[in-house]
């Protein structure tokens, strides 16, 4: 499974647990329009760290948190695993 698919799958899982209705996931979807709150993103980042072995937001202290789904995915793709 590609990184992107893993991220989408984890997001769908969390949306189900948190009873959040996710809009169709596209690269240009703003993270604030996903319906995820900061807790949901915290869960997503923790699970992706377990799954992919990286947490790009802790590694790069100066990295701004992404604002779109596409940027979020690239943060994972750009870190050498």
């Amino acid at each position, binding site marked *: 499974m590609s990184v992107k698919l893993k991220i989408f799958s984890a997001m769908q899982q969390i949306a189900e*647990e*948190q009873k959040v209705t996710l809009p169709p996931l596209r690269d240009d979807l703003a993270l604030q329009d996903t319906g995820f709150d900061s*807790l949901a993103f*915290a*869960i997503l980042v*923790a*699970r992706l760290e*377990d799954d992919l072995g990286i*947490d790009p937001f802790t590694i790069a202290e100066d990295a701004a948190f992404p604002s779109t789904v596409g940027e979020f995915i690239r943060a994972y793709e750009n870190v050498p695993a």
Partner: protein
Amino acid sequence: MSQPDVLALREYLGPELKGRTISDARHVISLTDILGYSCLIGRYRELSGRSVLLATSGQLQSALAMIELDGVARRMLLCPPDLNPDHIEGLLAGAEIDAIVTDRPLHRCDDGAHLVVGAGLPERPGAGWKTERATEWLMLTSGTSGPPKIVGHTLDGLAGAIIADGAARYQNATWATFYDIRRYGGLQIFLRAVIGGGSMVLSEPKEATVDHVARLRAGGVTHISGTPSHWRKLLMSSAVADFSPRYVRLSGEIADQAVLDGLARAFPHASIGHAYASTEAGVGFAVNDGREGFPADLIGQNRDGVEMKVVDGSLRIRSHRTARSYVGSGAPQLTDAEGFVDTGDLVELRDERYYFVGRRTGIINIGGLKVHPEEVETVINRHESVRMSRARSRRSPITGAIVVADIVLADGTDAGRHETIRTEILSRCNDALAAYKVPAVIRFVERLDLTAAGKLTRADA
């Protein structure tokens, strides 16, 4: 100087009760004629009035030395097996130790400044000690970080709950505990055995559960005590099937409904009680109705002279069973101005019953919202496939921390069911807990470690 009004342990030991013993894995010692023998070697007659460090490798030698020196020594500092050697020097100074009783060479301490006396089995003729004073019993707090604090008790206070229970009803009891008797919880059980006129089977470090249970059965153990974590571990073992105590006691951690129900199923003929006690606050109370938490009417003054109140959510206790003080220069105050010990254990009132929710120092902070790991574990432990769980904090770049859970499943749980169980646990947590308390990640683990005091290891606490 003779103080006939002071009772020491020797007053509870005499030839009139036959067949009393104390045993570990290697030795069985008769308590019936113990006063006729001495376990001390060397210049032991000089121990009278001294401040003595009891530093023995096993519990048995410490037990025998406590019996011999209570009422003789000025102080006895009980040295638990896991004591960090770096802390010994500070403790010697803090407790003004001038004598050491030990069964091993303590080169660090044998500097001429201390009288060093050997400890062995009671094989020499008794020293004929008389009770001369109320010995101070010093023990160490079991905190995980930094040097332990020295807590000072008297036998009178330590035995308060035992006397209140009516010690004589335990005359035919054989006691055991998973604890080490050189810590408060274990010492309570040792004292119950000695003062109540019974016998005792000591635990052994690193002994396999099945071997321990075999010794408990062989020793005829009827009354046994441990932390909820100890009991959860025992319930995981098939050895439990052959064991049938009459009284099962839990203390030292929150006894949730799941562990109480598990014990009731495993020991249908036992009465099961959970007690609240700490090294500083002493024994507060015991609850025997099989339910978690405690009745709200225990708050206030009870008939045993224990007074409890709840301030800022934490349980405060004032009684003659609490420790006298912390010992050592610069030691903090143990009680507030009114004599109450703040236990740091937080409680919540629901329907005329108080429930423990966790320790003030163990709170996980999720973006400013507080979570007690214990409240999460209580929900997880209700799942029938779960044997033990630990909720803990994990760093998060977004909320500062999140809650994650490590879970031990029952033996023989099909790995193919893990995902189903994970979903079920998450869904129960979602039903019972606020969203930020629900574990973000659940990990299934083979085992969870306990501290030397028998409590779940909480590295982040």
